[in-house]
Structures are given as C-alpha cells and as structure tokens.
C-alpha cells in the first residue's frame, strides 16, 4: 500500500468535518475522492499533507507515519498536492514556479549560492533541465518566461501539476484539476493524468467531473457530510443506492451519468 488513511476524524470547533474515514491506495492506482460540496474532501487533503492535524486517526505513507510531520516534511517524504483554488506563485515565471517545486530535492544553501560553487552551478543546470522537461510534459514549454499570473485558467491548473511533479512525488494529490476547464482541456488533462500514471506515480484525485472520474479512476471513495458512504470500483459506485441518493438528494443527478 502506498497510502493508508486510518480512522481520520476532524472537528473544527463544533463542526464535524470528517468522521472516522478509512481507505487505502495501492501503488500506481488512480484513486478518486468524490462527494458533494462540503463533504470534507479538501479537509482530507489538508490532513494528508499535514496542513493541519486530524482530531483522531493517522495517515501512513509507504510505512511511514505522516501525521505530526510538518507540511514540507510530507512533501520530502514524497507526497505533493495541487490546490482547489489555484495557488501558484503569481509574480514568478512559469519556469521559476516549477523550479520551486524541486526545492526539497536540491540542497544548495546560502554560501554555495553566493560563491557559485561547481556543485551549485551543476545543480542549477539540472534544476532547469528538469523543469523544462516537466513543462514539456504539461505542454507549457513555450510559455516558460511568462508570469504565472498571466496564464489562462487551464494553463494555470497544468502548471500547478507540473510544479507538484517537480518534487518527485510518489503520491500526487490533485484537488479538482478539471474545474473550470472546457471539453478539450479536460481531454488533455485526462491524457496528462494517464501519463503521470505511466510514470509510476500514484494519484489521489478530488473531482466533480463525473465522466472524467469514472473513466480515469481505478477505485473511488464517496464522502457525504464527512462520512464514507461507499468505496469501490467506478462500476460498483455507479450502482450504489446510497451514492445515488446522496447525489439525487442534492439535485446533481447528471453528475453521475
């Protein structure tokens, strides 16, 4: 197992955001995390990446406990994420954004940077090469010198993925990557996720675009009001009466189509 989420419960003040959620993600899987708005999906991401601690439960990644680590230590361990409400570094160029992603895989400090040691120069060169390679992967190579702020919406989503990939993750957490994308962009995203999967990277995906989810995910978990209501393959989920009810009750019928 790459990721084991064990009995996660999270309370904010009086609000129960997550209740005893447990699931496992196998190596190389694309695992979907779905549910209506406010179901606690992003909260789950925040707990996995240690942005804040769970009230109860723990997260194990490749046999290592993530709970209690600092967020950057989680990234170092090989878990990286994107954000639902895109959080790029707006005043950096596209290329620079990706280089920041490589931060925890590189090590030049103040002195080697200031004195431009051989090792540092070598490292800078390889950082750049790798960043360009990743931009090629997401199709933004042409725009490398553009400020991230000036990118189109879909491009920003892809840049965020490239930036996350730069940290050499074994597990990639994508938070609604298709949100706001048109049909052709969504198709490109589908291909991109397939490619990421081919690289041997496990993907945990939050997404509202059900056709995309059903096509790309190997397995899914469905949350509603912070509780698991179903877990299984897309086929099993589609036919689960509880899931249908949860979605029907929220007038989002077509989402499951």
């Amino acid at each position, binding site marked *: 197992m790459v990721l084991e989420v064990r009995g996660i419960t999270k309370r904010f003040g009086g609000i129960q955001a997550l209740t005893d959620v447990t699931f496992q993600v196998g190596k190389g899987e694309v695992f979907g995390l779905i549910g209506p708005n406010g179901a606690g999906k992003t909260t789950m991401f925040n707990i996995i990446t240690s942005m804040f601690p769970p009230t109860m439960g723990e997260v194990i990644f490749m046999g290592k406990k993530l709970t209690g680590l*600092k*967020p950057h230590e989680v*990234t170092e361990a090989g878990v990286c994420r994107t954000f639902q409400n895109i959080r790029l*570094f707006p005043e950096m160029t596209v290329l*620079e954004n990706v280089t920041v*992603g490589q931060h*925890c*895989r*590189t090590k*030049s400090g103040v002195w080697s940077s200031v004195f431009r040691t051989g090792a540092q120069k070598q490292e800078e060169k390889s950082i750049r090469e790798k960043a360009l390679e990743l931009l090629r992967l997401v199709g933004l190579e042409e725009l490398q010198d553009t400020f991230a702020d000036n990118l189109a919406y879909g491009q920003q989503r892809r840049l965020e993925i490239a930036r996350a990939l730069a940290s050499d993750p074994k597990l990639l957490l994508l938070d609604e990557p298709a949100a706001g994308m048109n049909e052709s962009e969504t198709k490109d995203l589908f291909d991109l996720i397939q490619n990421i999967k081919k690289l041997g990277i496990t993907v945990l995906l939050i997404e509202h675009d059900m056709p995309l989810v059903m096509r790309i995910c190997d397995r899914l978990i469905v949350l509603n009001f912070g509780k698991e209501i179903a877990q299984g393959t897309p086929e099993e989920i589609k036919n689960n009466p509880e899931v249908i009810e949860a979605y029907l009750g929220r007038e989002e019928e077509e989402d499951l189509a």
Partner: protein
Amino acid sequence: MLAELINPYYLQVLSFILINIILGVSIYITLSTGQLSLGHAGFMGIGAYASAILTLDYHMPLVVGIVVGAILAGIVGLCIGIPTLRLQGVYLAIATLGFGEVIRVLFINLEGLTKGAVGISSIPHIGRELVKGLQDFGFKASMIGLKNNQLISLSVFLLLLIITLLIIAFFIRQTNSRVGRAFAAIKMDERAAEAMGVNITYYKVLAFAQGAMVAGFAGALFAHVTAYISPADFSYHRAVEILIFAIFGGSEVIWGPIFGAAFLTAMPEILREVNEYRYMIYGVLLVVMMAFRPQGLIDTQMIYKLKQRRKKKGVS
C-alpha cells in the same frame, strides 16, 4: 585635477547614501519573505553600540568591532525571529516595533555601558584610522596630491562603496538561487511554498536574521563614520525611514530599496527647501504608494521588461 574633483562634502553625502543603501538592503531581505519589521532601527543600534563599545572601551580593531557588531545584531535577530515566527503580518510588525523601542530604552538606561542619553562620542573614525594606518606604511596624502581630509573622505567613500557593492552582489546571487526562490515563494504564498517542500520556518528565520545582521552592519559603519551615536539615532522614526526606502523604491527586487535609499537621501541635499517638508513628504509618499503602486517604483515587471528589451536589442 584629482585634488579639485575630490570634495569631502560630496563624498560625505555619498557615504551616507551608501550606508542608507545598506539599510535599504537590510529591510529588503526581511521583506523578501513577506515579513514587515519595524525593529530595524533597533538592530542598527545594536551593531552601532556593540562596535563603538568594543573599539572604544576594549580597544579592539575597527574590523573586529564592526564584524562583531553585525554578528551580534544577527544573533539578536535570530533570537527575536524564532519566537515571533508564529506571528503574522501586522502582529509581527507590532512586535518588532515593541522590540525596537525596548532596545532604545535599554540604551538609555544601561548607562554603565552606553553612557545613556548623552551618547558615545569620539568613536574611532574609519577614515581617520585608515589614513593613520596608511601613514604608518609611509603613505601620505600629499603623495597623490591630496589634502589629508580629502584622503580621509575618499577612503571612507571607497571603503563603503566596496562594502556596499559586495553586499549587493551577495544578495543578488542569493536571490537568484534556490534560497532566493524559497524566499520569494514564501512571500507570494506561504501555504503553497510549504506544500512544495519549502521549510518556511527555516527560511523566515534566516531572512529575519540576515536582515538584522545587515542592519547591524550598517549601524556599525554609521557609528564609525559619524564618530558619535546616541539612543535618539535609533528611534521609531529611523525604523520608519528605513521602511520608506523599500516602500518607495520597491521591495520586490533589490534595486528598489537601493534606488529608494539613494534618492531619498540625496533629495534633501539637492533640494534644501525640501527639508522643511521632508517628513510630510514621507507621510504622503507612504499613503500614495500604497494606493497607487504598493509594490514600489521599481518592480519585477519593470526589471523583466528591461531584460526583454535588452535581449531584443542583442538579437537585432
């Protein structure tokens, strides 16, 4: 020819500009991780007092005094930086303001060490010491056709120029490196930087301590250029003045505070009438800059465009 060009007055003004540039750089470093410090006058004071006391009371060489002063300010910055890390934005600014004032009160009250409000006078002067050193080697001002005071002012200026250029070069290189990118990432989006594997605690404390150290360094130089310091030199107004260098010139790129410090220091010399309204202008400047150009006159876009233009020219 040379003798007529070298006017101690201009060199004096330029020397103060250089010291203020170093101060501008010091606040730039702190700001480059998005931390606003109103305590830089305090760090400057620590550097100045430490160096003055070491050279005057303990007869240490100037170099030792200045370096120890800077390091001490850096250490204090470290000690302040770590606990204040959990404070954000406004709260950090207020805490540093409190720190700066406490330091000033300590300067006033620790009379045994600092001579209180009366201040420390006859601090060894960089230029005079340097020229004395040269004379010991048998070098005299008249040998290059200068008067003694011209040589003194010239040596102060050149020394400060070299130091300033080194500091600027240091931080330009740091900015264009992994460390600088981490700083910038933290400034733009702390949470995203954290998620990308940047140890924000480490880099924020690093930036804070570096800023404190550079401010302390500038303070030590200041003490040895004016040869007299008193607690009033390191008040809240000084902290605001340092901040204005960065706010006016711009805090996104290092050229911003450099320009800000140079322009605002030279302005009252060139336009003496401005002096009367200097602080009123500062006040209006802060408000106007925040409303119309919060990033300062010189920003990333501007530098970027300049670079693009140069690139194009290179091609054609």
